[in-house]
Protein backbone atom coordinates (compact mmCIF):
# COMPACT_ATOMS: atom_id res chain seq x y z
CA UNK A 1 0.00 0.00 0.00
CA UNK A 2 1.44 3.35 -0.98
CA UNK A 3 1.93 5.80 1.82
CA UNK A 4 -0.92 8.22 2.26
CA UNK A 5 -0.24 11.31 0.19
CA UNK A 6 -2.01 14.24 -1.35
CA UNK A 7 -4.02 12.12 -3.84
CA UNK A 8 -5.52 10.14 -1.02
CA UNK A 9 -6.76 13.24 0.69
CA UNK A 10 -8.04 14.66 -2.57
CA UNK A 11 -9.97 11.52 -3.38
CA UNK A 12 -11.44 11.54 0.09
CA UNK A 13 -12.47 15.13 -0.32
CA UNK A 14 -13.98 14.37 -3.74
CA UNK A 15 -16.06 11.61 -2.20
CA UNK A 16 -17.20 13.81 0.64
CA UNK A 17 -17.99 16.64 -1.77
CA UNK A 18 -20.10 14.36 -3.95
CA UNK A 19 -21.86 13.06 -0.90
CA UNK A 20 -22.80 16.62 -0.04
CA UNK A 21 -24.02 17.23 -3.57
CA UNK A 22 -26.10 14.08 -3.33
CA UNK A 23 -27.78 15.45 -0.25
CA UNK A 24 -28.45 18.85 -1.82
CA UNK A 25 -29.99 17.28 -4.89
CA UNK A 26 -31.86 14.46 -3.23
CA UNK A 27 -33.17 15.78 0.04
CA UNK A 28 -36.21 17.99 0.33
CA UNK A 29 -35.78 18.89 3.98
CA UNK A 30 -34.10 22.28 3.98
CA UNK A 31 -32.23 21.56 7.20
CA UNK A 32 -30.67 18.48 5.72
CA UNK A 33 -29.85 20.45 2.60
CA UNK A 34 -27.95 22.90 4.78
CA UNK A 35 -26.20 20.00 6.47
CA UNK A 36 -25.17 18.69 3.07
CA UNK A 37 -23.82 22.07 2.09
CA UNK A 38 -21.69 22.08 5.23
CA UNK A 39 -20.34 18.72 4.20
CA UNK A 40 -19.34 20.11 0.80
CA UNK A 41 -17.47 23.00 2.37
CA UNK A 42 -15.68 20.58 4.69
CA UNK A 43 -14.61 18.54 1.71
CA UNK A 44 -13.03 21.66 0.26
CA UNK A 45 -11.34 22.30 3.58
CA UNK A 46 -9.76 18.86 3.60
CA UNK A 47 -8.37 19.47 0.14
CA UNK A 48 -7.02 22.86 1.19
CA UNK A 49 -5.35 21.65 4.37
CA UNK A 50 -3.88 18.61 2.68
CA UNK A 51 -2.52 20.71 -0.16
CA UNK A 52 -1.05 23.15 2.30
CA UNK A 53 0.63 20.31 4.13
CA UNK A 54 2.06 18.56 1.12
CA UNK A 55 3.04 21.65 -0.86
CA UNK A 56 4.41 23.42 2.16
CA UNK A 57 2.31 26.54 1.76
CA UNK A 58 0.47 27.98 4.72
CA UNK A 59 -2.02 29.72 2.42
CA UNK A 60 -4.30 26.73 2.32
CA UNK A 61 -4.76 26.74 6.06
CA UNK A 62 -5.54 30.42 6.11
CA UNK A 63 -8.09 29.85 3.42
CA UNK A 64 -9.72 27.18 5.56
CA UNK A 65 -9.98 29.65 8.38
CA UNK A 66 -11.86 32.01 6.11
CA UNK A 67 -14.07 29.24 4.77
CA UNK A 68 -15.11 28.15 8.23
CA UNK A 69 -16.10 31.68 9.14
CA UNK A 70 -18.05 32.11 5.92
CA UNK A 71 -19.78 28.77 6.42
CA UNK A 72 -20.83 29.80 9.89
CA UNK A 73 -22.30 33.03 8.53
CA UNK A 74 -24.13 31.17 5.78
CA UNK A 75 -25.63 28.72 8.24
CA UNK A 76 -26.71 31.49 10.56
CA UNK A 77 -28.48 33.39 7.81
CA UNK A 78 -29.95 30.22 6.41
CA UNK A 79 -31.38 29.11 9.71
CA UNK A 80 -32.78 32.56 10.43
CA UNK A 81 -34.39 32.53 7.02
CA UNK A 82 -35.82 29.13 7.78
CA UNK A 83 -37.28 30.44 11.01
CA UNK A 84 -38.84 33.41 9.21
CA UNK A 85 -40.23 31.08 6.61
CA UNK A 86 -41.64 28.76 9.23
CA UNK A 87 -43.49 31.66 10.75
CA UNK A 88 -45.30 32.30 7.48
CA UNK A 89 -45.87 28.70 6.59
CA UNK A 90 -44.97 25.76 8.78
CA UNK A 91 -42.91 23.71 6.40
CA UNK A 92 -39.25 23.06 5.85
CA UNK A 93 -39.76 21.05 2.68
CA UNK A 94 -38.10 22.65 -0.30
CA UNK A 95 -40.65 21.27 -2.74
CA UNK A 96 -43.40 23.12 -0.93
CA UNK A 97 -41.67 26.27 -2.11
CA UNK A 98 -42.59 26.30 -5.76
CA UNK A 99 -44.88 29.26 -6.16
CA UNK A 100 -42.27 30.96 -8.32
CA UNK A 101 -41.90 28.91 -11.43
CA UNK A 102 -42.13 28.75 -15.23
Amino acid at each position, binding site marked *: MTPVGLPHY*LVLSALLFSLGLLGVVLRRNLLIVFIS*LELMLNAANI*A*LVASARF*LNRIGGQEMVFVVIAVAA*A*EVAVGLA*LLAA*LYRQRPTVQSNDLDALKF
Partner: protein
Amino acid sequence: MNAILTMPEMAVTALALGLLVLDLWTPADRKGDLGIAAIGGLALILAGSFLFGAGAPQYAFGGMYVLDGMALFFKRLMLGVGVVALAAALEYSKRFAAGTAEYCALILLAVSGMMWAASANHWALLFVSVELMTVTFYVLVSFERTRMPSLEAGVKYLILGALASAFLVYGVALVFGGTGTLGFAGDSGPGLGTGSVLVRVGLALVLAGLGFKIGMVPCQFWAPDVYQGAPAPTAALLAAGSKAAGFALLLRVLLEAAPDWALEMRPVLMLIAGASILYGNLCAIPQRNLKRLLGYSSIAHAGYMLLGIVVLERAGAAAILFYLAGYACAVLAAFLVAALAFDPGEPEEIPALAGLHRRSPYLAAALALSMISLAGIPPLVGFFGKFLLLKGVVLAAFDSRSFGWLAGVALAGIVTSFYYYFGVVRAIYWSAPAAERPPIAVSRVAGAALGACLVGIVAAGVFPSPLLEAARLAAGALRIP
Protein backbone atom coordinates in the same frame (compact mmCIF):
# COMPACT_ATOMS: atom_id res chain seq x y z
CA MET B 1 1.67 48.67 2.13
CA ASN B 2 -0.62 50.61 -0.14
CA ALA B 3 -3.67 50.36 2.06
CA ILE B 4 -4.67 53.82 0.90
CA LEU B 5 -5.74 52.27 -2.39
CA THR B 6 -8.59 50.55 -0.65
CA MET B 7 -10.08 53.84 0.47
CA PRO B 8 -13.28 53.60 -1.61
CA GLU B 9 -14.20 50.18 -0.29
CA MET B 10 -13.28 51.14 3.22
CA ALA B 11 -15.38 54.26 2.94
CA VAL B 12 -18.41 52.31 1.73
CA THR B 13 -18.04 49.84 4.56
CA ALA B 14 -17.66 52.65 7.06
CA LEU B 15 -20.74 54.31 5.64
CA ALA B 16 -22.73 51.12 6.11
CA LEU B 17 -21.56 50.65 9.68
CA GLY B 18 -22.13 54.31 10.44
CA LEU B 19 -25.65 54.01 9.12
CA LEU B 20 -26.35 51.08 11.42
CA VAL B 21 -25.03 52.97 14.41
CA LEU B 22 -26.88 56.19 13.60
CA ASP B 23 -30.04 54.17 13.19
CA LEU B 24 -30.06 53.61 16.93
CA TRP B 25 -30.55 57.30 17.64
CA THR B 26 -32.81 58.18 14.77
CA PRO B 27 -36.50 58.54 15.54
CA ALA B 28 -38.79 56.43 13.41
CA ASP B 29 -40.15 59.31 11.34
CA ARG B 30 -36.67 60.46 10.34
CA LYS B 31 -35.40 57.16 8.98
CA GLY B 32 -35.76 58.47 5.45
CA ASP B 33 -33.04 61.03 6.15
CA LEU B 34 -30.65 58.17 6.83
CA GLY B 35 -31.29 56.86 3.35
CA ILE B 36 -30.69 60.30 1.87
CA ALA B 37 -27.45 60.49 3.83
CA ALA B 38 -26.42 57.10 2.50
CA ILE B 39 -27.13 58.17 -1.07
CA GLY B 40 -25.20 61.38 -0.55
CA GLY B 41 -22.29 59.55 1.02
CA LEU B 42 -22.11 57.00 -1.76
CA ALA B 43 -22.31 59.74 -4.39
CA LEU B 44 -19.43 61.50 -2.62
CA ILE B 45 -17.38 58.32 -2.70
CA LEU B 46 -18.19 57.96 -6.38
CA ALA B 47 -16.96 61.49 -6.95
CA GLY B 48 -13.91 60.77 -4.85
CA SER B 49 -13.07 57.70 -6.89
CA PHE B 50 -12.19 60.02 -9.73
CA LEU B 51 -9.25 61.23 -7.68
CA PHE B 52 -7.60 57.91 -8.47
CA GLY B 53 -6.03 58.02 -11.85
CA ALA B 54 -6.09 54.93 -13.99
CA GLY B 55 -2.35 54.66 -14.27
CA ALA B 56 -0.19 51.61 -13.99
CA PRO B 57 -1.64 48.84 -11.83
CA GLN B 58 -0.95 49.35 -8.16
CA TYR B 59 -0.92 46.57 -5.64
CA ALA B 60 -1.69 46.33 -1.99
CA PHE B 61 -1.72 43.61 0.66
CA GLY B 62 1.07 41.63 -0.88
CA GLY B 63 -0.31 41.70 -4.40
CA MET B 64 -3.62 40.35 -3.26
CA TYR B 65 -5.40 43.56 -4.11
CA VAL B 66 -4.89 45.29 -7.42
CA LEU B 67 -6.05 48.71 -8.46
CA ASP B 68 -5.88 49.08 -12.21
CA GLY B 69 -8.01 50.68 -14.86
CA MET B 70 -10.44 47.82 -14.98
CA ALA B 71 -10.90 47.67 -11.23
CA LEU B 72 -11.51 51.40 -11.19
CA PHE B 73 -14.04 51.17 -14.00
CA PHE B 74 -15.95 48.48 -12.20
CA LYS B 75 -15.82 50.33 -8.90
CA ARG B 76 -17.30 53.44 -10.42
CA LEU B 77 -19.94 51.37 -12.12
CA MET B 78 -20.83 49.64 -8.86
CA LEU B 79 -20.92 52.88 -6.93
CA GLY B 80 -23.27 54.32 -9.50
CA VAL B 81 -25.43 51.21 -9.37
CA GLY B 82 -25.40 51.46 -5.60
CA VAL B 83 -26.62 55.05 -5.63
CA VAL B 84 -29.58 54.16 -7.85
CA ALA B 85 -30.34 51.01 -5.90
CA LEU B 86 -30.34 53.02 -2.68
CA ALA B 87 -32.76 55.50 -4.16
CA ALA B 88 -35.01 52.63 -5.17
CA ALA B 89 -34.64 51.09 -1.73
CA LEU B 90 -35.57 54.34 -0.06
CA GLU B 91 -38.73 54.52 -2.12
CA TYR B 92 -39.52 50.85 -1.72
CA SER B 93 -38.87 50.64 2.00
CA LYS B 94 -41.88 52.85 2.63
CA ARG B 95 -43.70 49.55 2.35
CA PHE B 96 -41.98 48.01 5.36
CA ALA B 97 -42.94 49.02 8.84
CA ALA B 98 -39.27 49.43 9.70
CA GLY B 99 -35.91 48.43 8.40
CA THR B 100 -34.97 51.29 6.09
CA ALA B 101 -31.58 51.66 7.69
CA GLU B 102 -30.87 47.94 7.69
CA TYR B 103 -31.89 47.67 4.07
CA CYS B 104 -29.69 50.55 3.03
CA ALA B 105 -26.76 49.33 5.11
CA LEU B 106 -26.97 45.87 3.59
CA ILE B 107 -27.05 47.34 0.11
CA LEU B 108 -23.94 49.32 0.96
CA LEU B 109 -22.23 46.18 2.25
CA ALA B 110 -23.14 44.31 -0.91
CA VAL B 111 -21.71 47.17 -2.96
CA SER B 112 -18.51 47.04 -0.93
CA GLY B 113 -18.31 43.31 -1.64
CA MET B 114 -18.64 43.97 -5.36
CA MET B 115 -15.94 46.60 -5.17
CA TRP B 116 -13.54 44.25 -3.42
CA ALA B 117 -14.28 41.70 -6.08
CA ALA B 118 -13.30 44.17 -8.78
CA SER B 119 -9.82 44.37 -7.27
CA ALA B 120 -9.33 40.70 -6.46
CA ASN B 121 -5.99 39.36 -7.56
CA HIS B 122 -5.96 36.40 -5.22
CA TRP B 123 -8.29 33.48 -4.70
CA ALA B 124 -8.87 34.29 -1.06
CA LEU B 125 -9.92 37.86 -1.83
CA LEU B 126 -12.06 36.56 -4.66
CA PHE B 127 -13.77 34.13 -2.33
CA VAL B 128 -14.44 36.48 0.54
CA SER B 129 -15.63 39.31 -1.66
CA VAL B 130 -18.00 36.99 -3.48
CA GLU B 131 -19.21 35.69 -0.16
CA LEU B 132 -19.67 39.13 1.32
CA MET B 133 -21.84 39.93 -1.66
CA THR B 134 -23.70 36.64 -1.59
CA VAL B 135 -24.43 36.42 2.11
CA THR B 136 -25.68 39.99 2.04
CA PHE B 137 -27.88 39.15 -0.88
CA TYR B 138 -29.42 36.22 1.00
CA VAL B 139 -30.82 38.77 3.38
CA LEU B 140 -31.61 41.41 0.78
CA VAL B 141 -33.60 38.94 -1.31
CA SER B 142 -35.66 37.72 1.62
CA PHE B 143 -35.88 41.15 3.20
CA GLU B 144 -39.66 41.27 2.98
CA ARG B 145 -39.86 38.63 5.64
CA THR B 146 -43.64 38.56 5.79
CA ARG B 147 -44.16 38.10 2.05
CA MET B 148 -43.93 34.50 0.92
CA PRO B 149 -42.47 35.13 -2.56
CA SER B 150 -39.62 37.10 -1.04
CA LEU B 151 -38.89 34.32 1.44
CA GLU B 152 -39.16 31.63 -1.20
CA ALA B 153 -36.78 33.54 -3.42
CA GLY B 154 -34.45 33.94 -0.45
CA VAL B 155 -34.39 30.22 0.25
CA LYS B 156 -33.76 29.39 -3.38
CA TYR B 157 -31.02 31.96 -3.69
CA LEU B 158 -29.45 30.74 -0.49
CA ILE B 159 -29.37 27.07 -1.40
CA LEU B 160 -28.20 27.55 -4.94
CA GLY B 161 -25.85 30.34 -3.93
CA ALA B 162 -24.30 28.21 -1.22
CA LEU B 163 -24.02 25.35 -3.69
CA ALA B 164 -22.25 27.62 -6.15
CA SER B 165 -20.00 28.86 -3.35
CA ALA B 166 -19.17 25.27 -2.51
CA PHE B 167 -18.17 24.66 -6.10
CA LEU B 168 -16.16 27.85 -6.07
CA VAL B 169 -14.24 27.08 -2.93
CA TYR B 170 -13.68 23.49 -3.94
CA GLY B 171 -12.36 24.71 -7.25
CA VAL B 172 -10.06 27.10 -5.45
CA ALA B 173 -8.85 24.21 -3.31
CA LEU B 174 -8.04 22.11 -6.36
CA VAL B 175 -6.28 25.00 -8.08
CA PHE B 176 -4.29 25.52 -4.93
CA GLY B 177 -3.51 21.84 -4.82
CA GLY B 178 -2.29 21.98 -8.39
CA THR B 179 -0.27 25.19 -8.30
CA GLY B 180 0.59 25.67 -4.66
CA THR B 181 -0.35 29.30 -4.79
CA LEU B 182 -3.46 31.30 -4.09
CA GLY B 183 -2.43 34.27 -6.18
CA PHE B 184 -3.71 34.71 -9.69
CA ALA B 185 -0.17 34.87 -10.96
CA GLY B 186 2.08 31.84 -10.85
CA ASP B 187 5.67 31.87 -9.68
CA SER B 188 7.08 32.10 -13.15
CA GLY B 189 4.88 34.39 -15.19
CA PRO B 190 1.74 36.44 -15.22
CA GLY B 191 -0.64 33.53 -15.74
CA LEU B 192 -1.21 30.42 -13.67
CA GLY B 193 0.44 27.27 -14.79
CA THR B 194 -2.54 25.37 -16.08
CA GLY B 195 -0.85 22.25 -17.25
CA SER B 196 -1.99 19.97 -14.48
CA VAL B 197 -5.36 18.38 -14.81
CA LEU B 198 -6.08 19.26 -11.20
CA VAL B 199 -5.84 22.96 -11.98
CA ARG B 200 -7.97 22.61 -15.07
CA VAL B 201 -10.70 20.80 -13.18
CA GLY B 202 -10.47 23.31 -10.37
CA LEU B 203 -10.88 26.19 -12.79
CA ALA B 204 -13.96 24.53 -14.25
CA LEU B 205 -15.50 24.42 -10.79
CA VAL B 206 -14.57 28.08 -10.28
CA LEU B 207 -16.24 28.84 -13.59
CA ALA B 208 -19.42 27.20 -12.32
CA GLY B 209 -19.27 29.24 -9.14
CA LEU B 210 -18.79 32.53 -10.96
CA GLY B 211 -21.27 31.51 -13.64
CA PHE B 212 -23.87 31.46 -10.93
CA LYS B 213 -23.25 35.15 -10.29
CA ILE B 214 -23.67 36.13 -13.92
CA GLY B 215 -26.53 33.73 -14.49
CA MET B 216 -25.18 31.71 -17.36
CA VAL B 217 -26.33 28.27 -18.46
CA PRO B 218 -26.27 25.84 -16.61
CA CYS B 219 -26.24 27.96 -13.45
CA GLN B 220 -29.10 30.17 -14.55
CA PHE B 221 -32.13 28.59 -12.94
CA TRP B 222 -32.22 30.81 -9.92
CA ALA B 223 -32.44 34.07 -11.85
CA PRO B 224 -36.12 34.21 -12.87
CA ASP B 225 -37.43 32.89 -9.58
CA VAL B 226 -35.27 35.16 -7.49
CA TYR B 227 -35.82 38.26 -9.61
CA GLN B 228 -39.53 37.70 -9.40
CA GLY B 229 -39.67 37.12 -5.68
CA ALA B 230 -37.06 39.56 -4.44
CA PRO B 231 -37.91 43.17 -3.59
CA ALA B 232 -37.42 45.27 -6.72
CA PRO B 233 -34.38 47.24 -5.45
CA THR B 234 -32.66 43.99 -4.53
CA ALA B 235 -33.38 42.55 -7.93
CA ALA B 236 -32.00 45.72 -9.51
CA LEU B 237 -28.80 45.38 -7.53
CA LEU B 238 -28.58 41.70 -8.41
CA ALA B 239 -29.04 42.35 -12.09
CA ALA B 240 -26.77 45.35 -12.41
CA GLY B 241 -24.23 44.93 -9.63
CA SER B 242 -23.86 41.26 -8.91
CA LYS B 243 -23.64 40.46 -12.60
CA ALA B 244 -20.99 43.14 -13.06
CA ALA B 245 -18.96 41.73 -10.18
CA GLY B 246 -19.25 38.27 -11.67
CA PHE B 247 -17.95 39.53 -14.98
CA ALA B 248 -15.15 41.45 -13.32
CA LEU B 249 -13.95 38.25 -11.70
CA LEU B 250 -14.54 36.18 -14.80
CA LEU B 251 -12.48 38.57 -16.88
CA ARG B 252 -9.66 38.47 -14.36
CA VAL B 253 -9.67 34.73 -14.02
CA LEU B 254 -10.16 33.82 -17.65
CA LEU B 255 -8.10 36.48 -19.37
CA GLU B 256 -5.42 37.27 -16.79
CA ALA B 257 -4.97 34.26 -14.58
CA ALA B 258 -5.71 31.38 -16.91
CA PRO B 259 -5.67 32.43 -20.56
CA ASP B 260 -4.40 29.04 -21.75
CA TRP B 261 -7.23 27.34 -20.01
CA ALA B 262 -9.72 29.81 -21.44
CA LEU B 263 -8.41 29.04 -24.89
CA GLU B 264 -8.84 25.35 -24.25
CA MET B 265 -12.34 25.94 -22.95
CA ARG B 266 -13.32 28.22 -25.80
CA PRO B 267 -15.69 25.75 -27.48
CA VAL B 268 -17.47 25.14 -24.20
CA LEU B 269 -17.69 28.83 -23.46
CA MET B 270 -19.17 29.40 -26.90
CA LEU B 271 -21.70 26.68 -26.27
CA ILE B 272 -22.57 28.26 -22.95
CA ALA B 273 -22.95 31.69 -24.50
CA GLY B 274 -25.22 30.40 -27.25
CA ALA B 275 -27.28 28.32 -24.85
CA SER B 276 -27.70 31.24 -22.46
CA ILE B 277 -28.88 33.50 -25.25
CA LEU B 278 -31.39 30.99 -26.51
CA TYR B 279 -32.61 29.89 -23.11
CA GLY B 280 -33.10 33.41 -21.80
CA ASN B 281 -34.83 34.72 -24.86
CA LEU B 282 -37.06 31.75 -25.56
CA CYS B 283 -38.25 31.39 -22.00
CA ALA B 284 -38.94 35.09 -21.75
CA ILE B 285 -41.48 35.04 -24.55
CA PRO B 286 -44.49 33.72 -22.66
CA GLN B 287 -43.77 35.75 -19.53
CA ARG B 288 -46.41 37.95 -18.02
CA ASN B 289 -44.52 39.03 -14.94
CA LEU B 290 -42.23 41.99 -15.55
CA LYS B 291 -39.61 41.05 -12.98
CA ARG B 292 -39.56 37.44 -14.10
CA LEU B 293 -39.20 38.60 -17.67
CA LEU B 294 -36.21 40.67 -16.66
CA GLY B 295 -34.84 37.59 -14.93
CA TYR B 296 -34.96 35.56 -18.11
CA SER B 297 -33.63 38.43 -20.14
CA SER B 298 -30.73 38.78 -17.73
CA ILE B 299 -29.72 35.23 -18.68
CA ALA B 300 -29.77 36.22 -22.33
CA HIS B 301 -27.72 39.33 -21.62
CA ALA B 302 -25.17 37.23 -19.76
CA GLY B 303 -24.96 35.19 -22.94
CA TYR B 304 -24.39 38.28 -25.08
CA MET B 305 -21.64 39.44 -22.76
CA LEU B 306 -19.98 36.04 -22.87
CA LEU B 307 -19.54 36.73 -26.57
CA GLY B 308 -17.00 39.32 -25.48
CA ILE B 309 -15.13 36.71 -23.47
CA VAL B 310 -14.98 33.97 -26.05
CA VAL B 311 -13.06 36.15 -28.47
CA LEU B 312 -10.35 36.32 -25.76
CA GLU B 313 -9.19 39.78 -26.66
CA ARG B 314 -9.00 43.16 -25.05
CA ALA B 315 -11.52 44.49 -27.53
CA GLY B 316 -14.03 41.90 -26.36
CA ALA B 317 -13.39 42.84 -22.76
CA ALA B 318 -13.92 46.50 -23.62
CA ALA B 319 -17.20 45.60 -25.28
CA ILE B 320 -18.28 43.78 -22.13
CA LEU B 321 -17.48 46.78 -19.97
CA PHE B 322 -19.40 49.08 -22.26
CA TYR B 323 -22.30 46.69 -22.42
CA LEU B 324 -22.39 46.24 -18.66
CA ALA B 325 -22.63 49.97 -18.09
CA GLY B 326 -25.45 50.28 -20.59
CA TYR B 327 -27.21 47.21 -19.27
CA ALA B 328 -26.95 48.55 -15.74
CA CYS B 329 -28.64 51.81 -16.71
CA ALA B 330 -31.46 50.07 -18.55
CA VAL B 331 -32.14 47.36 -16.03
CA LEU B 332 -31.96 49.74 -13.07
CA ALA B 333 -34.51 51.97 -14.75
CA ALA B 334 -36.77 49.00 -15.40
CA PHE B 335 -36.64 47.80 -11.81
CA LEU B 336 -37.12 51.33 -10.50
CA VAL B 337 -40.31 51.55 -12.50
CA ALA B 338 -41.29 48.11 -11.26
CA ALA B 339 -40.78 49.37 -7.72
CA LEU B 340 -42.89 52.46 -8.30
CA ALA B 341 -45.63 51.43 -10.68
CA PHE B 342 -47.11 48.55 -8.73
CA ASP B 343 -49.00 48.66 -5.49
CA PRO B 344 -47.49 46.90 -2.48
CA GLY B 345 -48.24 43.21 -2.64
CA GLU B 346 -49.43 43.40 -6.22
CA PRO B 347 -47.67 40.93 -8.52
CA GLU B 348 -45.72 42.77 -11.22
CA GLU B 349 -47.88 41.59 -14.11
CA ILE B 350 -47.22 43.22 -17.47
CA PRO B 351 -50.91 43.66 -18.38
CA ALA B 352 -51.27 45.76 -15.23
CA LEU B 353 -49.00 48.31 -16.89
CA ALA B 354 -51.81 49.25 -19.25
CA GLY B 355 -52.53 52.92 -19.00
CA LEU B 356 -49.24 53.64 -17.28
CA HIS B 357 -48.61 56.49 -19.67
CA ARG B 358 -51.65 58.20 -18.27
CA ARG B 359 -50.85 57.44 -14.66
CA SER B 360 -47.30 58.68 -15.02
CA PRO B 361 -45.91 59.64 -18.42
CA TYR B 362 -42.44 59.79 -16.92
CA LEU B 363 -42.45 56.22 -15.67
CA ALA B 364 -44.00 55.02 -18.91
CA ALA B 365 -41.37 56.72 -21.02
CA ALA B 366 -38.62 55.45 -18.74
CA LEU B 367 -39.76 51.84 -18.94
CA ALA B 368 -40.25 52.08 -22.69
CA LEU B 369 -36.77 53.54 -23.19
CA SER B 370 -35.25 50.90 -21.00
CA MET B 371 -36.96 48.11 -22.93
CA ILE B 372 -35.90 49.59 -26.26
CA SER B 373 -32.36 49.85 -25.02
CA LEU B 374 -32.38 46.27 -23.77
CA ALA B 375 -33.70 45.18 -27.14
CA GLY B 376 -30.73 46.91 -28.73
CA ILE B 377 -32.41 49.44 -30.99
CA PRO B 378 -30.31 52.47 -31.93
CA PRO B 379 -29.63 55.11 -30.93
CA LEU B 380 -29.84 53.85 -27.36
CA VAL B 381 -26.88 52.43 -25.53
CA GLY B 382 -27.98 48.81 -25.79
CA PHE B 383 -27.53 48.89 -29.51
CA PHE B 384 -23.96 49.99 -29.47
CA GLY B 385 -22.98 47.41 -26.89
CA LYS B 386 -24.46 44.60 -28.94
CA PHE B 387 -22.83 46.05 -32.01
CA LEU B 388 -19.39 45.88 -30.41
CA LEU B 389 -19.89 42.40 -29.00
CA LEU B 390 -21.14 41.07 -32.30
CA LYS B 391 -18.35 42.71 -34.20
CA GLY B 392 -15.79 40.67 -32.34
CA VAL B 393 -17.63 37.47 -33.10
CA VAL B 394 -18.13 38.32 -36.75
CA LEU B 395 -14.46 39.12 -37.06
CA ALA B 396 -13.57 35.79 -35.54
CA ALA B 397 -15.99 34.06 -37.87
CA PHE B 398 -13.51 34.53 -40.67
CA ASP B 399 -11.20 32.06 -38.99
CA SER B 400 -13.63 29.60 -37.58
CA ARG B 401 -17.01 28.55 -38.77
CA SER B 402 -18.30 27.89 -35.28
CA PHE B 403 -18.11 31.62 -34.61
CA GLY B 404 -20.39 32.09 -37.57
CA TRP B 405 -22.90 29.83 -35.89
CA LEU B 406 -22.54 31.72 -32.67
CA ALA B 407 -23.19 35.01 -34.44
CA GLY B 408 -26.26 33.46 -36.02
CA VAL B 409 -27.55 32.26 -32.67
CA ALA B 410 -26.94 35.66 -31.14
CA LEU B 411 -28.86 37.35 -33.94
CA ALA B 412 -31.72 34.90 -33.65
CA GLY B 413 -31.81 35.65 -29.94
CA ILE B 414 -31.90 39.37 -30.57
CA VAL B 415 -34.77 38.99 -33.03
CA THR B 416 -36.68 36.88 -30.55
CA SER B 417 -36.12 39.39 -27.82
CA PHE B 418 -37.83 42.17 -29.79
CA TYR B 419 -41.04 40.29 -29.35
CA TYR B 420 -41.20 40.39 -25.60
CA TYR B 421 -39.55 43.74 -25.06
CA PHE B 422 -42.06 45.34 -27.37
CA GLY B 423 -44.79 43.40 -25.65
CA VAL B 424 -43.99 45.52 -22.60
CA VAL B 425 -43.94 48.77 -24.58
CA ARG B 426 -47.19 47.77 -26.14
CA ALA B 427 -48.77 47.07 -22.79
CA ILE B 428 -47.79 50.53 -21.63
CA TYR B 429 -49.01 52.56 -24.57
CA TRP B 430 -51.15 50.35 -26.72
CA SER B 431 -53.58 48.64 -24.44
CA ALA B 432 -56.58 49.78 -22.49
CA PRO B 433 -56.45 49.47 -18.70
CA ALA B 434 -59.05 47.26 -17.07
CA ALA B 435 -59.87 49.95 -14.57
CA GLU B 436 -58.91 53.56 -14.17
CA ARG B 437 -56.19 53.85 -11.55
CA PRO B 438 -54.89 56.88 -9.74
CA PRO B 439 -51.82 58.73 -11.00
CA ILE B 440 -48.49 57.74 -9.53
CA ALA B 441 -46.54 60.29 -7.58
CA VAL B 442 -42.82 59.90 -8.12
CA SER B 443 -40.72 61.23 -5.27
CA ARG B 444 -37.89 63.58 -6.02
CA VAL B 445 -35.16 61.10 -5.12
CA ALA B 446 -36.60 58.29 -7.20
CA GLY B 447 -37.26 60.66 -10.05
CA ALA B 448 -33.70 61.90 -10.01
CA ALA B 449 -32.30 58.38 -9.91
CA LEU B 450 -34.52 57.35 -12.78
CA GLY B 451 -33.46 60.46 -14.65
CA ALA B 452 -29.81 59.56 -14.17
CA CYS B 453 -30.44 56.12 -15.68
CA LEU B 454 -32.29 57.60 -18.62
CA VAL B 455 -29.56 60.12 -19.27
CA GLY B 456 -27.14 57.21 -19.27
CA ILE B 457 -29.25 55.21 -21.70
CA VAL B 458 -29.64 58.05 -24.15
CA ALA B 459 -26.35 59.89 -23.77
CA ALA B 460 -24.17 56.81 -23.95
CA GLY B 461 -26.14 55.71 -26.98
CA VAL B 462 -25.94 58.97 -28.86
CA PHE B 463 -22.44 59.89 -27.74
CA PRO B 464 -20.78 56.58 -26.97
CA SER B 465 -17.25 57.93 -27.30
CA PRO B 466 -16.47 58.84 -23.70
CA LEU B 467 -17.84 55.61 -22.26
CA LEU B 468 -16.26 53.55 -24.99
CA GLU B 469 -12.94 55.25 -24.45
CA ALA B 470 -13.17 54.58 -20.73
CA ALA B 471 -14.03 50.95 -21.37
CA ARG B 472 -11.12 50.59 -23.77
CA LEU B 473 -8.70 52.13 -21.31
CA ALA B 474 -10.00 49.86 -18.59
CA ALA B 475 -9.73 46.78 -20.74
CA GLY B 476 -6.29 47.89 -21.78
CA ALA B 477 -5.22 47.43 -18.19
CA LEU B 478 -5.91 43.71 -18.39
CA ARG B 479 -2.60 41.93 -18.23
CA ILE B 480 -3.28 39.37 -20.90
CA PRO B 481 -0.04 37.43 -21.15
